[in-house]
C-alpha cells in the first residue's frame, strides 16, 4: 500500500533566495499528488518531473519516467515546457508510484513500484538552470 507522509511544510527552491522566481512544489493530498504554485513572475518550466529518493544524506534520482507537469492524460505527447503565469497553480496528474506507468497510460516492458522509502519531486525551469523541490514524502 502506498501512503504519504503528511508534510505540510514547504521547501523553497534555492533559486528563490537568489531572487529568482518563487516557485513552490507542494504535496496537497494523497500519495503521488503534487501542486506547483508560482508566487513570482511568469516562468517556463520543463514538463519533466523527476523523483528522487533519499539515500543516507543524499538524494538519488530514481529513473522514474513518463511523469510530467500535465493536468490531464491525453493522447498527445507532453510538451517539453509549460508556462506558469504569475500567481498560477498547476495540479498535475498524480504519480502512481511506478517506474514506467508513472502517470498516464504508456507502453511499458519493465515496470513496477519504486521501493519503500523517502522521496521528493523535482521540477526544473525550462532551461534547467533552476530546480524546485517538493517536501519529502514517504512511500510505504
Amino acid at each position, binding site marked *: 500500500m502506498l501512503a504519504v507522509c503528511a508534510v505540510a511544510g514547504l521547501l523553497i527552491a534555492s533559486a528563490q533566495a537568489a531572487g529568482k522566481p518563487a516557485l513552490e512544489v507542494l504535496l496537497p493530498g494523497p500519495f503521488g499528488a503534487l501542486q506547483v504554485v508560482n508566487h513570482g513572475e511568469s516562468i517556463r518550466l520543463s514538463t519533466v518531473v523527476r523523483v528522487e529518493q533519499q539515500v543516507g544524506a543524499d538524494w538519488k534520482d530514481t529513473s522514474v519516467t*513518463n511523469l510530467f507537469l500535465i493536468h490531464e492524460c491525453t493522447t498527445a505527447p507532453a510538451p517539453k515546457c509549460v508556462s506558469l503565469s504569475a500567481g498560477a497553480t498547476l495540479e498535475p496528474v498524480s504519480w502512481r508510484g511506478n*517506474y514506467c506507468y508513472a502517470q*498516464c497510460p504508456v*507502453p511499458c*516492458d*519493465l515496470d513496477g513500484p519504486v521501493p519503500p522509502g523517502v522521496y521528493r519531486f523535482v521540477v526544473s525551469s525550462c532551461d534547467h538552470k533552476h530546480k524546485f523541490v517538493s517536501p519529502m514524502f514517504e512511500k510505504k
Partner: protein
Amino acid sequence: MAVSIVPGSVTLIVSPKPSVDAPATTATHMNFTSQPIGVRGTCRIDGSAGDNPAGWTLGLIQLKWIDTDWSYYRGQSNGDGSLFVQAARPPALATASCRDTVVVGAIFIDNNPGGDRTVATAGSPFPIAMSAAFGDHPSRPFPLTRNNTKTGKPNFIREAQTEIHFCTILSLMSPAGIFQHLKHIYWNVHWQARFQPTNFANIAAPWTITLTGKKVDNSANATAAIDGAPNDKRFSAIITAAGAANCNAVMNAAFASPNITESNVWTTFDVTR
C-alpha cells in the same frame, strides 16, 4: 581455489506466474495491463581463505525478443474510413530485441533496489548465499480514437493485438565483469480483442470488449527454468552488449510515432506488415 559456484545451488523460480487483465478503458485509452510475474534466483559461491569475494554479483538480465503491437481503427460508418497502426515494425520500432532495465544502458534488472541483486563484500565468509528477485507487469495503451486525415473523421479503436516475449536470465558477474549465465526462463503476455463504443458520441461511455483469437491470445505464460545461457541468435548477442536498445525507451518511441496506414473506407489491413 578460485571463486566458484557451489554445485546444485542454483535455482530460478517463477512465483507468482504472470497473468493478463481483461482489456479496459480509461478516459483516453484502451489498456492492456497485467499482473506481475515474480522471478527469484539463488546460488551460493565458494572459495578459499585467500579469495576475495568483493564484487561478485548475482543478478537478473531480461531481454525482449518478440513484440507484436498493432491496432485497427475505423469510423462509425464506411465513409468515415479506417486506419491501421503498427508499432512493432520499422521505422516505428527500430529493433525488436532489447534489454529491459529502468536505467538506459544498464545490464542487470534494476526495478527492485535492495532485492534485484546480491553483491558480495570483502571479508564475507565462504560459502556465500546470493539471491536476485524482481517483479514485472508489462502494459500497453491504445488511444480510443484517432483522426483519419483522409476523411477528416474520428476513427475508433476496433481491434488490437499485443504479444510480448521475454527471456530472463540468472547471471553471476565476476568483479572483472565476466558473466556466467546460470539459468533462464521464457515468459510472455498476450492480448487480442475487438472493441465497439456503445455511444460513438460519448467514448467515455462503456465499450463492448470481445476477446478474439484463441485462448493463447489472451494469456500469460512462463516456462520452467532452463540450465545455462539461452542460445537463440535473435537476442543472444545483446545479453550483455554495450549499447543494447532499452525496451521501455524503444516502445515509448514506437507508440509515440507508430506507422499509420489510412483508408477512406473500411478496409482489411495486413497486420503482419
